[in-house]
């Protein structure tokens, strides 16, 4: 999907489809599928969101187990290094365009676990976060607001985390390797998924 133009800027859309770009953005915005990977305590607020009281399916949002079909990755809560490995692999398995919604205070700066030895302090260094919701635990309304913000950003094109991840892959990769140690993909991630 990507190609390098004469000016060296990577363009992610095929030229032939430029005309339909607003349509695509609208469609992406209206059918966000969530990767059902509840990473932390925020996962407990996803079932109320998905069911009767806050029913988010009316916005075209649906939990889906497969990362290959997901658009929206909810990081629901603190991230430990052990989970972060899985998050990175899951995120890289998702198809472009993909968006990350960080949920709660912990992915922003560690939250209550600011001094914990096993909680990642700033998630944005390892994977690109598009929208972050503060609070512990954020109310379902706050999550809904975050999702609406995500939709707005998708429409005006500022939800560009997946582009940033491609363009600054070296930076993210360096940070990940610093945290986990060189060669963690070969040593560990290959065991879970042979094709990495």
């Amino acid at each position, binding site marked *: 999907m990507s190609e390098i133009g004469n000016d060296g800027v990577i363009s992610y859309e095929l030229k032939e489809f430029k005309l339909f770009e607003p349509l695509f953005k609208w469609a992406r915005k209206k059918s966000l599928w969530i990767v059902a990977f509840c990473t932390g305590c925020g996962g407990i607020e996803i079932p109320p969101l998905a069911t009767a009281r806050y029913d988010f399916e009316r916005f075209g949002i649906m939990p889906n187990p497969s990362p290959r079909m997901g658009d929206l990755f909810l990081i629901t809560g603190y991230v430990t290094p052990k989970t972060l490995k899985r998050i990175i692999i899951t995120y890289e398995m998702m198809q472009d365009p993909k968006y990350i919604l960080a949920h709660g205070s912990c992915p922003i700066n560690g939250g209550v676990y600011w*001094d*914990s030895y*096993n909680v990642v302090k700033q998630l944005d*260094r390892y994977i690109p976060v598009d929208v972050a919701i503060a609070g512990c635990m954020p109310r379902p309304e706050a999550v809904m607001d975050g999702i609406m913000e995500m939709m707005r950003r998708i429409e005006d094109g500022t939800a560009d985390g997946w582009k940033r991840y491609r363009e600054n892959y070296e930076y993210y990769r360096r940070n990940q390797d610093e945290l986990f140690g060189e060669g963690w993909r070969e040593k560990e991630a290959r065991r879970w998924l042979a094709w990495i």
Partner: protein
Amino acid sequence: MDMNEKNVEEKVEESRPELPDTREGRLVKALIEKAPYAEGSVRRERRVEFRVSVERIHEFLELASETFEMLMQISVVDWIKEGEFELVYQLWSVSESVHAFVRTRIPRENAKLPTVMDVWPVAETYEREAHEFFGIIFEGNPRLGPFILEEREYKKHPLRKDFNMLGHVKAIYGEDFDRYDESKTNYVI
């Protein structure tokens, strides 16, 4: 010398075996008669306490498992000033409805204990955890190693009192960990 002092202390405590004539008191009495090397006391209703030396802990727990069917937890307390780990085996008796603390102390350096996996298979999990967080070696447990933690934290045994948590976090996360006050002028940590 330490050992001698401790023995004296134990003797002093042994000299007051005023066990009340309650269900708990009778239970402790019965167990102490079978295992005279242990000392027991009643803390309150449904809470009893035993102190056993580390050499005979396995023997005692095997004996106690007849009354106390369940091993709820192995709690480790790191008494760093005394240079000892205190292991508290939390037992629960379903038939008698009594909770027992079985305490034993081991030196912090090269802490080694026999496993109680043969008495309660669930001890495997508790021992793995105690090994991971405190570095105590349970002889006979085949699965000691990184369990909850990953390699880097596992090597440091983070729940030991001499583990410098803030220093460790600062070393790993660097600038992310820096905390300033709201005006961004004063460095907090």
